[in-house]
Protein backbone atom coordinates (compact mmCIF):
# COMPACT_ATOMS: atom_id res chain seq x y z
CA UNK A 1 0.00 0.00 0.00
CA UNK A 2 1.53 3.37 -0.92
CA UNK A 3 2.11 5.72 1.95
CA UNK A 4 0.10 8.97 1.87
CA UNK A 5 1.93 12.19 2.62
CA UNK A 6 0.88 13.57 6.05
CA UNK A 7 -0.12 16.97 4.66
CA UNK A 8 -2.34 15.23 2.15
CA UNK A 9 -4.11 13.36 4.93
CA UNK A 10 -4.84 16.62 6.66
CA UNK A 11 -6.18 18.12 3.42
CA UNK A 12 -8.42 15.15 2.76
CA UNK A 13 -9.89 15.12 6.23
CA UNK A 14 -10.64 18.84 6.19
CA UNK A 15 -12.36 18.48 2.85
CA UNK A 16 -14.23 15.54 4.27
CA UNK A 17 -15.39 17.67 7.14
CA UNK A 18 -16.84 20.46 4.95
CA UNK A 19 -18.64 17.89 2.79
CA UNK A 20 -19.96 16.39 5.99
CA UNK A 21 -21.20 19.74 7.25
CA UNK A 22 -22.92 20.40 3.89
CA UNK A 23 -24.67 17.07 4.05
CA UNK A 24 -25.74 17.70 7.63
CA UNK A 25 -27.27 21.07 6.72
CA UNK A 26 -29.11 19.54 3.80
CA UNK A 27 -30.39 16.68 5.95
CA UNK A 28 -31.59 19.12 8.53
CA UNK A 29 -33.41 21.23 5.91
CA UNK A 30 -35.01 18.13 4.40
CA UNK A 31 -36.09 16.72 7.75
CA UNK A 32 -39.69 16.46 8.80
CA UNK A 33 -39.00 18.29 12.04
CA UNK A 34 -37.60 21.26 10.16
CA UNK A 35 -40.61 21.53 7.85
CA UNK A 36 -42.98 21.33 10.80
CA UNK A 37 -41.03 24.04 12.58
CA UNK A 38 -41.11 26.24 9.50
CA UNK A 39 -44.84 25.66 9.09
CA UNK A 40 -45.53 26.56 12.73
CA UNK A 41 -43.37 29.64 12.38
CA UNK A 42 -45.20 30.88 9.28
CA UNK A 43 -48.65 30.15 10.68
CA UNK A 44 -47.65 31.83 13.92
CA UNK A 45 -46.59 34.95 12.03
CA UNK A 46 -49.88 35.07 10.11
CA UNK A 47 -51.94 34.70 13.28
CA UNK A 48 -49.78 37.26 15.03
CA UNK A 49 -50.45 39.79 12.23
CA UNK A 50 -54.18 39.13 12.41
CA UNK A 51 -54.20 39.50 16.18
CA UNK A 52 -52.41 42.81 16.07
CA UNK A 53 -54.84 43.95 13.40
CA UNK A 54 -57.81 42.90 15.50
CA UNK A 55 -56.34 44.60 18.51
CA UNK A 56 -55.81 47.76 16.51
CA UNK A 57 -59.52 47.95 15.65
CA UNK A 58 -60.40 47.02 19.21
CA UNK A 59 -61.93 43.65 18.36
CA UNK A 60 -63.61 41.77 21.16
CA UNK A 61 -62.75 38.06 20.83
CA UNK A 62 -65.48 35.69 21.96
CA UNK A 63 -64.18 32.26 20.93
CA UNK A 64 -65.93 30.63 23.87
CA UNK A 65 -69.30 31.24 22.17
CA UNK A 66 -68.38 29.53 18.92
CA UNK A 67 -68.63 25.91 20.10
CA UNK A 68 -72.36 26.32 20.70
CA UNK A 69 -72.89 26.86 17.00
CA UNK A 70 -71.25 23.53 16.23
CA UNK A 71 -72.51 21.29 19.02
CA UNK A 72 -74.57 22.71 21.83
CA UNK A 73 -74.65 21.07 25.26
CA UNK A 74 -78.16 21.36 26.68
CA UNK A 75 -80.09 19.63 29.42
CA UNK A 76 -81.35 16.94 27.06
CA UNK A 77 -77.95 15.98 25.64
CA UNK A 78 -76.06 17.36 22.62
CA UNK A 79 -77.90 19.61 20.21
CA UNK A 80 -76.63 19.97 16.63
CA UNK A 81 -75.49 23.58 16.14
CA UNK A 82 -76.35 25.84 13.23
CA UNK A 83 -72.94 25.58 11.58
CA UNK A 84 -73.11 21.80 11.59
CA UNK A 85 -76.62 21.94 10.12
CA UNK A 86 -75.24 24.23 7.44
CA UNK A 87 -72.44 21.76 6.74
CA UNK A 88 -74.96 18.96 6.29
CA UNK A 89 -76.83 21.07 3.72
CA UNK A 90 -73.56 21.92 1.98
CA UNK A 91 -72.64 18.23 1.77
CA UNK A 92 -76.11 17.35 0.50
CA UNK A 93 -75.93 20.13 -2.07
CA UNK A 94 -72.43 19.12 -3.14
CA UNK A 95 -73.16 15.43 -3.58
CA UNK A 96 -76.35 15.95 -5.53
CA UNK A 97 -74.94 18.58 -7.84
CA UNK A 98 -71.69 16.67 -8.35
CA UNK A 99 -73.52 13.48 -9.31
CA UNK A 100 -75.67 15.47 -11.71
CA UNK A 101 -72.65 17.36 -13.07
CA UNK A 102 -70.81 14.09 -13.79
CA UNK A 103 -73.87 12.65 -15.55
CA UNK A 104 -74.45 15.78 -17.68
CA UNK A 105 -70.70 16.10 -18.26
CA UNK A 106 -70.41 12.57 -19.60
CA UNK A 107 -73.31 13.13 -21.99
CA UNK A 108 -71.80 16.40 -23.25
CA UNK A 109 -68.37 14.82 -23.68
CA UNK A 110 -69.82 11.92 -25.67
CA UNK A 111 -71.89 14.31 -27.79
CA UNK A 112 -68.80 16.37 -28.46
CA UNK A 113 -66.82 13.29 -29.49
CA UNK A 114 -69.61 11.87 -31.62
CA UNK A 115 -69.30 11.91 -35.37
CA UNK A 116 -72.73 13.52 -35.60
CA UNK A 117 -72.23 17.14 -36.61
CA UNK A 118 -75.33 18.25 -34.69
CA UNK A 119 -74.15 16.44 -31.56
CA UNK A 120 -70.81 18.15 -31.38
CA UNK A 121 -72.32 21.56 -32.29
CA UNK A 122 -74.89 21.34 -29.51
CA UNK A 123 -72.20 20.29 -27.05
CA UNK A 124 -69.84 23.08 -28.05
CA UNK A 125 -72.67 25.64 -27.95
CA UNK A 126 -73.68 24.55 -24.46
CA UNK A 127 -70.10 24.53 -23.20
CA UNK A 128 -69.32 27.99 -24.53
CA UNK A 129 -72.58 29.44 -23.20
CA UNK A 130 -72.18 28.11 -19.69
CA UNK A 131 -68.45 28.56 -19.41
CA UNK A 132 -68.58 32.22 -20.33
CA UNK A 133 -71.27 33.17 -17.78
CA UNK A 134 -70.34 34.18 -14.24
CA UNK A 135 -71.59 31.62 -11.75
CA UNK A 136 -73.63 34.26 -9.94
CA UNK A 137 -75.42 35.30 -13.13
CA UNK A 138 -76.15 31.66 -13.95
CA UNK A 139 -77.63 31.23 -10.47
CA UNK A 140 -79.87 34.29 -10.91
CA UNK A 141 -80.89 33.07 -14.36
CA UNK A 142 -81.90 29.67 -13.06
CA UNK A 143 -83.54 30.86 -9.85
CA UNK A 144 -85.35 33.96 -11.10
CA UNK A 145 -85.98 33.09 -14.77
CA UNK A 146 -86.13 29.30 -15.13
CA UNK A 147 -87.25 28.71 -11.54
CA UNK A 148 -90.75 30.25 -11.72
CA UNK A 149 -91.46 28.50 -15.04
CA UNK A 150 -90.83 25.03 -13.67
CA UNK A 151 -91.72 25.89 -10.09
CA UNK A 152 -88.23 25.16 -8.72
CA UNK A 153 -87.44 25.66 -5.07
CA UNK A 154 -84.26 27.36 -3.81
CA UNK A 155 -82.49 24.09 -3.15
CA UNK A 156 -83.39 22.51 -6.50
CA UNK A 157 -82.40 25.67 -8.35
CA UNK A 158 -79.06 25.68 -6.52
CA UNK A 159 -78.38 22.03 -7.33
CA UNK A 160 -79.27 22.68 -10.95
CA UNK A 161 -77.09 25.78 -11.18
CA UNK A 162 -74.02 24.13 -9.64
CA UNK A 163 -74.53 20.98 -11.73
CA UNK A 164 -74.83 22.90 -14.99
CA UNK A 165 -71.88 25.16 -14.21
CA UNK A 166 -69.59 22.28 -13.31
CA UNK A 167 -70.88 19.87 -15.95
CA UNK A 168 -69.09 21.75 -18.73
CA UNK A 169 -65.82 21.63 -16.80
CA UNK A 170 -66.36 17.94 -16.10
CA UNK A 171 -67.17 17.38 -19.78
CA UNK A 172 -63.81 18.86 -20.77
CA UNK A 173 -62.09 16.52 -18.30
CA UNK A 174 -63.89 13.51 -19.77
CA UNK A 175 -63.19 14.55 -23.35
CA UNK A 176 -59.50 15.06 -22.72
CA UNK A 177 -59.22 11.76 -20.86
CA UNK A 178 -60.99 9.76 -23.54
CA UNK A 179 -58.85 11.38 -26.21
CA UNK A 180 -55.74 10.52 -24.19
CA UNK A 181 -56.38 6.81 -24.81
CA UNK A 182 -54.32 5.83 -27.87
CA UNK A 183 -56.20 5.56 -31.17
CA UNK A 184 -54.98 1.96 -31.55
CA UNK A 185 -57.30 0.95 -28.71
CA UNK A 186 -60.28 2.18 -30.68
CA UNK A 187 -59.15 0.36 -33.77
CA UNK A 188 -58.46 -2.90 -31.95
CA UNK A 189 -61.82 -2.73 -30.20
CA UNK A 190 -63.65 -2.07 -33.45
CA UNK A 191 -61.68 -4.75 -35.28
CA UNK A 192 -62.84 -7.28 -32.68
CA UNK A 193 -66.40 -6.21 -33.53
CA UNK A 194 -67.38 -4.15 -30.49
CA UNK A 195 -70.08 -1.54 -31.10
CA UNK A 196 -69.38 2.12 -30.33
CA UNK A 197 -71.14 2.02 -26.92
CA UNK A 198 -69.26 -1.19 -26.09
CA UNK A 199 -65.95 0.41 -27.09
CA UNK A 200 -66.63 3.21 -24.60
CA UNK A 201 -67.97 0.96 -21.87
CA UNK A 202 -65.35 -1.78 -21.90
CA UNK A 203 -62.27 -0.26 -23.48
CA UNK A 204 -62.06 3.53 -23.50
CA UNK A 205 -63.71 4.66 -20.26
CA UNK A 206 -61.93 2.11 -18.00
CA UNK A 207 -58.63 3.31 -19.44
CA UNK A 208 -59.61 6.96 -19.01
CA UNK A 209 -60.18 6.66 -15.28
CA UNK A 210 -56.56 7.27 -14.41
CA UNK A 211 -56.62 10.45 -16.49
CA UNK A 212 -59.97 11.51 -15.02
CA UNK A 213 -59.50 11.08 -11.28
CA UNK A 214 -56.97 13.81 -10.46
CA UNK A 215 -58.68 16.67 -12.32
CA UNK A 216 -62.12 15.44 -11.27
CA UNK A 217 -61.09 15.70 -7.62
CA UNK A 218 -60.00 19.25 -8.27
CA UNK A 219 -63.43 19.85 -9.75
CA UNK A 220 -65.17 18.36 -6.71
CA UNK A 221 -63.20 20.63 -4.40
CA UNK A 222 -64.02 23.54 -6.71
CA UNK A 223 -67.70 22.64 -6.48
CA UNK A 224 -67.67 22.53 -2.70
CA UNK A 225 -66.21 26.00 -2.72
CA UNK A 226 -68.57 27.42 -5.31
CA UNK A 227 -71.52 25.99 -3.41
CA UNK A 228 -71.05 28.95 -1.06
CA UNK A 229 -72.52 31.23 -3.70
CA UNK A 230 -76.03 29.89 -3.19
CA UNK A 231 -76.06 31.85 0.07
CA UNK A 232 -77.22 34.79 -2.08
CA UNK A 233 -80.57 33.07 -2.57
CA UNK A 234 -80.65 32.10 1.11
CA UNK A 235 -80.24 28.34 0.87
CA UNK A 236 -79.37 27.36 4.44
CA UNK A 237 -75.89 26.01 3.80
CA UNK A 238 -72.67 26.64 5.66
CA UNK A 239 -71.95 30.14 4.38
CA UNK A 240 -75.54 31.32 4.86
CA UNK A 241 -75.54 29.98 8.39
CA UNK A 242 -72.28 31.76 9.08
CA UNK A 243 -73.71 35.02 7.76
CA UNK A 244 -76.85 34.68 9.84
CA UNK A 245 -74.90 34.01 13.01
CA UNK A 246 -72.69 37.01 12.38
CA UNK A 247 -75.63 39.32 11.82
CA UNK A 248 -76.96 38.18 15.20
CA UNK A 249 -73.73 38.25 17.18
CA UNK A 250 -71.20 40.46 15.31
CA UNK A 251 -68.52 37.77 15.78
CA UNK A 252 -67.23 38.05 12.19
CA UNK A 253 -63.66 36.94 12.91
CA UNK A 254 -64.49 33.85 14.92
CA UNK A 255 -67.31 32.62 12.68
CA UNK A 256 -65.56 33.20 9.37
CA UNK A 257 -62.44 31.45 10.66
CA UNK A 258 -64.57 28.54 11.82
CA UNK A 259 -66.47 28.37 8.52
CA UNK A 260 -63.17 28.44 6.60
CA UNK A 261 -61.77 25.65 8.78
CA UNK A 262 -64.87 23.51 8.20
CA UNK A 263 -64.59 23.93 4.41
CA UNK A 264 -60.88 23.13 4.62
CA UNK A 265 -61.45 19.95 6.63
CA UNK A 266 -64.17 18.82 4.22
CA UNK A 267 -62.04 19.33 1.10
CA UNK A 268 -58.94 17.81 2.71
CA UNK A 269 -60.83 14.63 3.61
CA UNK A 270 -62.01 14.43 0.02
CA UNK A 271 -58.48 14.88 -1.35
CA UNK A 272 -57.07 12.18 0.92
CA UNK A 273 -59.80 9.76 -0.11
CA UNK A 274 -59.10 10.33 -3.79
CA UNK A 275 -55.34 9.94 -3.36
CA UNK A 276 -56.15 6.53 -1.94
CA UNK A 277 -58.38 5.75 -4.96
CA UNK A 278 -55.70 6.87 -7.39
CA UNK A 279 -53.17 4.51 -5.87
CA UNK A 280 -55.64 1.70 -6.29
CA UNK A 281 -56.12 2.45 -9.97
CA UNK A 282 -52.40 2.84 -10.55
CA UNK A 283 -51.89 -0.81 -9.65
CA UNK A 284 -54.24 -1.87 -12.41
CA UNK A 285 -52.49 0.05 -15.15
Amino acid at each position, binding site marked *: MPKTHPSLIKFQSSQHRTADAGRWVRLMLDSRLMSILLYVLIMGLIIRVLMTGAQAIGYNWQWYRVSDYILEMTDDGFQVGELLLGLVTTIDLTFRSFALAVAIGLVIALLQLSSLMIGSRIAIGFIEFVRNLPLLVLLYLIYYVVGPIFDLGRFTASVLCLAVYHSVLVAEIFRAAIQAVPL*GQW*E*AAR*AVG*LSTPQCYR*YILIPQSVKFILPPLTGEAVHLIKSSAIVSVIAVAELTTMGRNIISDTYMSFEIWFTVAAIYLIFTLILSIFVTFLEKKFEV*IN
Partner: protein
Amino acid sequence: MIEIRGLGMYFGKFQALSNVSLSVEAGEKVVICGPSGSGKSTLIRCINRLEEHSSGQLFVDGVEIGEETRNIRNVRMEIGMVFQQFNLFPHLTVLDNLTVGPVRVRKMSRRDAERRARKYLQRVHIPEQADKYPSQLSGGQQQRVAIARSLCMEPKIMLFDEPTSALDPEMINEVLDVMVELASTGMTMICVTHEMGFARKVADKMVFMEEGEIIETAPPEEFFNHPRSKRCQMFLDKVLEH
Protein backbone atom coordinates in the same frame (compact mmCIF):
# COMPACT_ATOMS: atom_id res chain seq x y z
CA MET B 1 -63.62 -14.55 -50.27
CA ILE B 2 -62.41 -11.00 -50.86
CA GLU B 3 -63.01 -9.14 -54.09
CA ILE B 4 -61.57 -5.67 -54.58
CA ARG B 5 -62.43 -3.72 -57.74
CA GLY B 6 -60.85 -0.42 -58.66
CA LEU B 7 -60.50 0.79 -55.09
CA GLY B 8 -59.52 4.44 -54.58
CA MET B 9 -58.96 6.31 -51.36
CA TYR B 10 -57.90 9.83 -50.40
CA PHE B 11 -56.47 11.27 -47.19
CA GLY B 12 -57.48 14.87 -47.82
CA LYS B 13 -55.87 15.61 -51.15
CA PHE B 14 -53.30 12.83 -50.91
CA GLN B 15 -54.25 9.80 -52.93
CA ALA B 16 -53.46 6.78 -50.77
CA LEU B 17 -54.94 4.16 -53.09
CA SER B 18 -55.69 4.38 -56.77
CA ASN B 19 -57.52 1.81 -58.80
CA VAL B 20 -56.53 -1.20 -56.73
CA SER B 21 -58.00 -4.54 -57.78
CA LEU B 22 -57.31 -7.82 -56.05
CA SER B 23 -59.15 -11.02 -55.38
CA VAL B 24 -58.42 -13.46 -52.60
CA GLU B 25 -59.85 -16.99 -52.59
CA ALA B 26 -60.84 -18.87 -49.45
CA GLY B 27 -57.76 -20.41 -47.86
CA GLU B 28 -55.40 -18.30 -49.94
CA LYS B 29 -52.39 -16.57 -48.34
CA VAL B 30 -51.51 -13.20 -49.81
CA VAL B 31 -48.41 -11.26 -48.85
CA ILE B 32 -48.36 -7.55 -49.67
CA CYS B 33 -45.03 -5.77 -49.75
CA GLY B 34 -43.70 -2.46 -50.94
CA PRO B 35 -41.93 0.64 -49.68
CA SER B 36 -43.40 2.56 -46.75
CA GLY B 37 -46.20 4.93 -47.68
CA SER B 38 -47.20 2.77 -50.61
CA GLY B 39 -50.73 2.14 -49.28
CA LYS B 40 -50.32 -1.47 -48.09
CA SER B 41 -51.69 -0.84 -44.63
CA THR B 42 -54.41 1.44 -45.97
CA LEU B 43 -55.53 -1.31 -48.31
CA ILE B 44 -55.96 -3.95 -45.63
CA ARG B 45 -57.51 -1.43 -43.25
CA CYS B 46 -60.14 -0.74 -45.91
CA ILE B 47 -61.09 -4.43 -45.83
CA ASN B 48 -62.54 -4.19 -42.30
CA ARG B 49 -63.43 -0.55 -42.82
CA LEU B 50 -61.03 1.01 -40.36
CA GLU B 51 -60.47 3.28 -43.36
CA GLU B 52 -63.25 4.29 -45.72
CA HIS B 53 -62.54 4.02 -49.42
CA SER B 54 -63.77 6.78 -51.69
CA SER B 55 -64.30 4.90 -54.94
CA GLY B 56 -64.44 1.38 -56.30
CA GLN B 57 -66.03 -1.70 -54.79
CA LEU B 58 -65.03 -4.07 -52.05
CA PHE B 59 -66.73 -7.38 -51.23
CA VAL B 60 -65.97 -9.59 -48.25
CA ASP B 61 -67.61 -13.00 -48.36
CA GLY B 62 -70.20 -11.68 -50.79
CA VAL B 63 -71.12 -8.62 -48.72
CA GLU B 64 -70.27 -5.24 -50.19
CA ILE B 65 -68.34 -3.03 -47.79
CA GLY B 66 -69.28 0.61 -48.06
CA GLU B 67 -71.45 3.35 -46.67
CA GLU B 68 -74.55 1.25 -47.22
CA THR B 69 -73.20 -1.74 -45.29
CA ARG B 70 -75.91 -2.27 -42.69
CA ASN B 71 -73.99 -4.24 -40.22
CA ILE B 72 -70.30 -3.62 -40.47
CA ARG B 73 -69.91 -5.36 -37.11
CA ASN B 74 -71.10 -8.65 -38.58
CA VAL B 75 -68.41 -8.35 -41.22
CA ARG B 76 -65.75 -7.38 -38.68
CA MET B 77 -66.60 -10.43 -36.59
CA GLU B 78 -65.41 -12.56 -39.49
CA ILE B 79 -62.18 -10.62 -40.00
CA GLY B 80 -59.37 -10.88 -37.50
CA MET B 81 -56.79 -8.12 -37.47
CA VAL B 82 -53.30 -8.02 -36.00
CA PHE B 83 -51.66 -4.61 -35.66
CA GLN B 84 -48.07 -3.47 -35.79
CA GLN B 85 -48.34 -2.02 -32.26
CA PHE B 86 -50.26 -5.07 -30.87
CA ASN B 87 -52.97 -2.78 -29.42
CA LEU B 88 -53.76 -5.12 -26.56
CA PHE B 89 -56.12 -3.70 -23.94
CA PRO B 90 -53.72 -2.77 -21.11
CA HIS B 91 -56.35 -2.68 -18.36
CA LEU B 92 -57.46 -6.28 -19.00
CA THR B 93 -55.62 -9.51 -18.27
CA VAL B 94 -54.53 -11.66 -21.19
CA LEU B 95 -57.53 -13.89 -20.64
CA ASP B 96 -59.93 -10.93 -20.57
CA ASN B 97 -58.33 -9.52 -23.71
CA LEU B 98 -59.22 -12.79 -25.40
CA THR B 99 -62.74 -13.15 -24.02
CA VAL B 100 -64.05 -9.58 -24.42
CA GLY B 101 -64.88 -10.17 -28.11
CA PRO B 102 -66.53 -13.59 -27.78
CA VAL B 103 -68.50 -12.52 -24.68
CA ARG B 104 -69.59 -9.05 -25.82
CA VAL B 105 -69.91 -9.57 -29.56
CA ARG B 106 -70.63 -13.27 -30.02
CA LYS B 107 -72.63 -13.36 -26.76
CA MET B 108 -70.89 -16.51 -25.58
CA SER B 109 -71.02 -17.53 -21.94
CA ARG B 110 -67.95 -16.57 -19.95
CA ARG B 111 -67.10 -20.22 -19.32
CA ASP B 112 -67.17 -21.18 -22.97
CA ALA B 113 -65.24 -18.05 -23.89
CA GLU B 114 -62.54 -18.83 -21.34
CA ARG B 115 -62.24 -22.40 -22.56
CA ARG B 116 -61.86 -21.11 -26.08
CA ALA B 117 -59.34 -18.48 -24.97
CA ARG B 118 -57.17 -21.08 -23.25
CA LYS B 119 -57.30 -23.24 -26.37
CA TYR B 120 -55.95 -20.42 -28.52
CA LEU B 121 -53.36 -19.40 -25.95
CA GLN B 122 -52.14 -22.99 -26.19
CA ARG B 123 -52.10 -22.57 -29.97
CA VAL B 124 -49.78 -19.56 -29.69
CA HIS B 125 -47.65 -21.38 -27.09
CA ILE B 126 -48.25 -19.14 -24.05
CA PRO B 127 -50.98 -20.88 -22.00
CA GLU B 128 -49.16 -19.98 -18.78
CA GLN B 129 -49.54 -16.20 -19.30
CA ALA B 130 -53.35 -16.15 -19.10
CA ASP B 131 -53.62 -14.17 -15.87
CA LYS B 132 -50.93 -11.59 -16.54
CA TYR B 133 -51.42 -8.08 -17.83
CA PRO B 134 -50.07 -7.21 -21.29
CA SER B 135 -47.40 -4.89 -19.86
CA GLN B 136 -45.87 -7.90 -18.07
CA LEU B 137 -45.18 -9.71 -21.36
CA SER B 138 -42.42 -9.35 -23.93
CA GLY B 139 -43.22 -7.85 -27.33
CA GLY B 140 -43.26 -11.24 -29.01
CA GLN B 141 -45.60 -12.64 -26.39
CA GLN B 142 -47.86 -9.59 -26.69
CA GLN B 143 -48.13 -10.03 -30.43
CA ARG B 144 -48.96 -13.71 -29.98
CA VAL B 145 -51.69 -12.72 -27.53
CA ALA B 146 -52.98 -10.29 -30.17
CA ILE B 147 -53.10 -13.13 -32.70
CA ALA B 148 -54.91 -15.34 -30.20
CA ARG B 149 -57.36 -12.50 -29.49
CA SER B 150 -58.29 -12.37 -33.16
CA LEU B 151 -58.51 -16.15 -33.43
CA CYS B 152 -60.90 -16.31 -30.48
CA MET B 153 -63.54 -14.73 -32.71
CA GLU B 154 -62.95 -17.70 -35.07
CA PRO B 155 -62.78 -15.40 -38.10
CA LYS B 156 -62.77 -16.51 -41.71
CA ILE B 157 -60.03 -14.09 -42.69
CA MET B 158 -56.96 -12.84 -40.84
CA LEU B 159 -55.33 -9.53 -41.67
CA PHE B 160 -51.78 -8.84 -40.50
CA ASP B 161 -50.53 -5.26 -40.59
CA GLU B 162 -46.72 -5.47 -40.29
CA PRO B 163 -46.98 -7.79 -37.28
CA THR B 164 -43.25 -8.06 -36.71
CA SER B 165 -42.11 -4.49 -37.45
CA ALA B 166 -42.26 -3.32 -33.84
CA LEU B 167 -40.49 -6.35 -32.43
CA ASP B 168 -36.92 -6.89 -31.31
CA PRO B 169 -35.12 -9.19 -33.77
CA GLU B 170 -34.94 -12.15 -31.43
CA MET B 171 -38.72 -12.13 -31.03
CA ILE B 172 -39.65 -12.00 -34.69
CA ASN B 173 -39.38 -15.73 -35.26
CA GLU B 174 -41.67 -16.78 -32.43
CA VAL B 175 -44.41 -14.66 -34.03
CA LEU B 176 -43.67 -15.83 -37.57
CA ASP B 177 -43.73 -19.46 -36.42
CA VAL B 178 -47.22 -18.96 -35.06
CA MET B 179 -48.26 -17.37 -38.36
CA VAL B 180 -46.81 -20.25 -40.37
CA GLU B 181 -48.69 -22.73 -38.18
CA LEU B 182 -51.85 -20.71 -38.67
CA ALA B 183 -51.32 -20.76 -42.43
CA SER B 184 -51.12 -24.54 -42.37
CA THR B 185 -54.63 -24.72 -40.87
CA GLY B 186 -56.07 -23.32 -44.08
CA MET B 187 -56.91 -19.84 -42.80
CA THR B 188 -57.36 -17.11 -45.40
CA MET B 189 -54.59 -14.63 -44.67
CA ILE B 190 -53.51 -11.25 -45.96
CA CYS B 191 -50.19 -10.10 -44.55
CA VAL B 192 -48.42 -6.82 -44.98
CA THR B 193 -44.84 -7.66 -44.10
CA HIS B 194 -41.22 -7.24 -45.06
CA GLU B 195 -40.33 -10.74 -43.89
CA MET B 196 -39.48 -12.27 -47.24
CA GLY B 197 -38.46 -15.64 -45.77
CA PHE B 198 -41.95 -15.95 -44.33
CA ALA B 199 -43.45 -14.85 -47.63
CA ARG B 200 -41.56 -17.52 -49.57
CA LYS B 201 -42.69 -20.14 -47.10
CA VAL B 202 -46.43 -19.47 -46.96
CA ALA B 203 -47.54 -17.09 -49.71
CA ASP B 204 -49.76 -18.28 -52.53
CA LYS B 205 -49.71 -14.85 -54.05
CA MET B 206 -47.30 -11.93 -53.75
CA VAL B 207 -48.49 -8.37 -54.26
CA PHE B 208 -46.12 -5.44 -54.73
CA MET B 209 -47.47 -1.95 -54.14
CA GLU B 210 -46.04 1.48 -54.72
CA GLU B 211 -47.62 4.92 -54.47
CA GLY B 212 -51.07 3.52 -53.86
CA GLU B 213 -51.06 1.17 -56.84
CA ILE B 214 -50.57 -2.52 -57.26
CA ILE B 215 -47.53 -2.81 -59.51
CA GLU B 216 -47.22 -6.54 -59.61
CA THR B 217 -49.14 -9.64 -58.57
CA ALA B 218 -47.47 -13.02 -59.00
CA PRO B 219 -46.94 -16.41 -57.37
CA PRO B 220 -43.91 -16.25 -55.03
CA GLU B 221 -41.68 -18.40 -57.24
CA GLU B 222 -42.06 -16.05 -60.17
CA PHE B 223 -42.13 -12.95 -57.97
CA PHE B 224 -38.80 -13.57 -56.28
CA ASN B 225 -36.94 -15.04 -59.24
CA HIS B 226 -38.27 -13.11 -62.21
CA PRO B 227 -40.03 -9.92 -61.15
CA ARG B 228 -41.48 -8.26 -64.22
CA SER B 229 -41.29 -4.61 -63.22
CA LYS B 230 -38.11 -2.70 -62.63
CA ARG B 231 -39.38 -1.02 -59.45
CA CYS B 232 -40.23 -4.36 -57.92
CA GLN B 233 -36.79 -5.65 -58.84
CA MET B 234 -35.17 -2.67 -57.14
CA PHE B 235 -37.28 -3.13 -54.00
CA LEU B 236 -36.44 -6.82 -53.77
CA ASP B 237 -32.75 -6.09 -54.22
CA LYS B 238 -32.89 -3.77 -51.22
CA VAL B 239 -34.95 -6.07 -49.01
CA LEU B 240 -33.08 -9.26 -49.87
CA GLU B 241 -29.61 -7.75 -49.59
CA HIS B 242 -28.93 -9.28 -46.21
